[in-house]
């Protein structure tokens, strides 16, 4: 009973729901954000319907047709072992989405738990977690990822693991920051005074309020995650053949760029467009939520 009083009192100011509505409203006004959403929509559709969209199997080789230029038979041409590049780009969307969702999902999970714990408990726990996150933030991200991938052996799973290891502190920081703000807010103090259990406060108040800044951060990160994974694959620490990963495709295609431009170009465009989609969306979402911009004329 007493809780409902608390909630109604804060609904207007801090409800994640109203915040979301505002974000969606804001996004609809921005043409760039709409463009971003469309791109991501297409990507997801491509990943889901890959078997229906791809004209060939992404791994079927035809040595006699290797390095064929784009034609009606192979719209994006073929690669150095005669696989259809269009089909590989289409199936590659699955790999990209998998990398993005797993990395961002795991980092959000780990980061939020650690961040909220740090912020809520404070004291030495906070100190410890934050110092560890400092270390990871001072690390040149790509180099750490390379070291992990080199150490564990190159594979997509190890790339994902490496990226989770370098990315979690960002979310830990965001989550902790939110908790610290919330801790000072009256209703938390009130909740404490009223003897609401810590756990309850945590689940009902702290977590929901952390979610929106974290989602924004995640949207912004998705593009970077994808690009980092592609870079790792490019250097040779990522996806293994015959996985149709876009970065790996560019890496293999780079020696062919001079004579067989299609090999590296289409996967390159796929990365560019997809990352751009994530970035446009993330950018717009951030603008809408940026408190300093709200006041602007």
């Amino acid at each position: 009973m007493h809780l409902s009083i608390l909630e109604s009192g804060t609904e207007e100011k801090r409800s994640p729901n109203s915040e979301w509505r505002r974000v969606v409203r804001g996004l609809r006004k921005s043409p760039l954000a709409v463009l971003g959403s469309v791109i991501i929509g297409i990507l997801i559709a491509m990943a889901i319907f890959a078997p229906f969209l791809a004209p060939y199997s992404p791994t079927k080789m035809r040595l006699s047709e290797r390095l064929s230029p784009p034609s009606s038979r192979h719209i994006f041409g073929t690669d150095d072992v005669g696989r259809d590049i269009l089909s590989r780009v289409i199936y590659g969307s699955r790999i990209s989405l998998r990398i993005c969702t797993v990395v961002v999902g795991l980092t959000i999970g780990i980061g939020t738990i650690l961040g909220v714990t740090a912020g809520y408990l404070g004291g030495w726990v906070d100190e410890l977690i934050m110092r560890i996150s400092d270390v990871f933030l001072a690390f040149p991200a790509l180099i750490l990822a390379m070291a992990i991938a080199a150490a564990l052996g190159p594979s997509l799973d190890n790339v994902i693991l490496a990226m989770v290891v370098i990315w979690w502190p960002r979310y830990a920081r965001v989550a902790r920051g939110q908790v610290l703000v919330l801790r000072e807010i009256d209703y938390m103090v009130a909740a404490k005074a009223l003897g609401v259990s810590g756990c309850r406060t945590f689940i009902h108040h702290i977590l929901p309020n952390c979610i929106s800044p974290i989602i924004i951060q995640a949207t912004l990160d998705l593009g970077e995650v994808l690009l980092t994974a592609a870079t790792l694959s490019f250097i040779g620490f990522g996806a293994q053949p015959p996985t149709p990963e876009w970065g790996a495709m560019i890496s293999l295609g780079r020696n062919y760029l001079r004579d067989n431009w299609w090999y590296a170009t289409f996967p390159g465009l796929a990365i560019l467009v997809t990352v751009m989609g994530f970035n446009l969306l993330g950018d717009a979402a951030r603008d809408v939520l940026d408190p300093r911009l709200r006041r602007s004329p």
Partner: protein
Amino acid sequence: MLRRSLLVMLSVALVAAFSLTVLASSEDGVLVFGATGELRTLDPHVSVDNNAWRAIYYCYDRLVEFKLGTTELVPGLATSWDIADDGLTYTFHLREGIKFIDGTPFNAEAVKFNFDRLFAMGLAPAGTFGFVDKVEVVDDYAVNFVLKEAFIPGISSFATDQGCIVSPGVMEHDVAGDWGQDWLAEHSAGTGPFFVDEWTHGVRVVLARNDSYWGEPAKLEKVSIRYIPEAADLRMLLETGEVDIGEKLTVDQIEAMKGTSGITVFEAPSFCCHYVYMNCQRPYLNDVRVRQAISYAVNYDGIINDLWRGTATQMRGPIPVGLVGHDENVFQYQQDLEKARELLADAGYPGGGFTLKIMHAPVIPEWRPMALVIQEGLAEIGIKLEIESYAWATLRDKLNTGDFDMSHGYWTPDYADADMFTWYWFYSQNWGLAGNRSWYKNVVMDKLVTQSRIEVDPDKRLALFQGIQWISVGDAAYLYLLQANYQIVMRDWVKGYVYNPMLLNMPNFPGMYIEK
């Protein structure tokens, strides 16, 4: 602010345009070699890397040398040599009146110093002379090598990069008993036609002509070996003429450059063999029928004609064409899926139904597509092949510990003898990196390969090699894929290039020149 930034951008563009006039002004006496591999040390007693040998080799001389373009041995720093009847002692008679570039005289003591240094440091190049027991100075210009056991091909080891004779003067640079390693890693101290003039790490090594060379002086004033990590970049530089000659480009790149005006592609057979190790100690692969089935399942034509675009020859047993001992009648596997399936069924795996893994390393870009073709062939007979790529060091470690099913590999001989392919590949004491990378053991084979090392009669030796080749094909411990052609791309104005199959990646800089 805006105007200023525009100004800056404009001036950058101007600078760039202006720079064109400065570009491409290479001098005639300087050869620019583009290398995609980076060298790490210039010490011949440390390095076992062709990229470094390219820079090292012509800064030194050796007791014996390969005759230009052949595997035949001719006098070098030694004017002649005798091999004792029991094959246990080599005596070298040394050339007189030669000085190292640092002024130290060359004599028997200097030769002994080199082998002392090599063995005391005990690094990989020392392994090439593992058959040497001790080195004795006979007089100022004669030196004896006493061997642990007779070793027929031993003499040609002295012509390899590991046999470079370094000046004893390097001991002046000795730091804490390191035999001058730190210093020699970045300098040269030989009697050769060139010396190391400059090494800017990660950029280039510049060799300059040794004007006091005792033999015929080099034609070029300088050789600048530029490090270009990306093959795509190297190709661009060759096309614009900024680089005169370079390697390695991919087969497809070279194929595309053939016929480009101003570009010459040199191509010749080499002893470089690409093959696949099949770990005989692993389940499935420990059955000879499975290994034979795999050998029948591979699309050799696709690999050689499509991937390698015909710039390779399918291997016929372990000894490559061109080496004495090669038997052109040895059985050669061809893709025969029916036969492969039968053999699998014989072995108790009708329809396959098991999974194997194959390792490759991205440093050899040809391996990945080859692995894909093998994967496809094995899929036809029901074997699932997973491809794994590893860092070079990790791959080697796994080979050495036997922690793999199948792996890509290549082999180039250190000395021009079939022994490099038989003893190393099949002797069961050589399991792991040493050479028997299929972890193969056959008692008969063990006898044959050790016998062939010491057999003095050439005809008997040939018969031994023949036996080895037939057994090795039947036992199918390796997947005998291909013997690659050596290809190098150069500008038309590069003259005097002579290829030597024993000195892969090490062009004859002293004889080369530029004629524009």
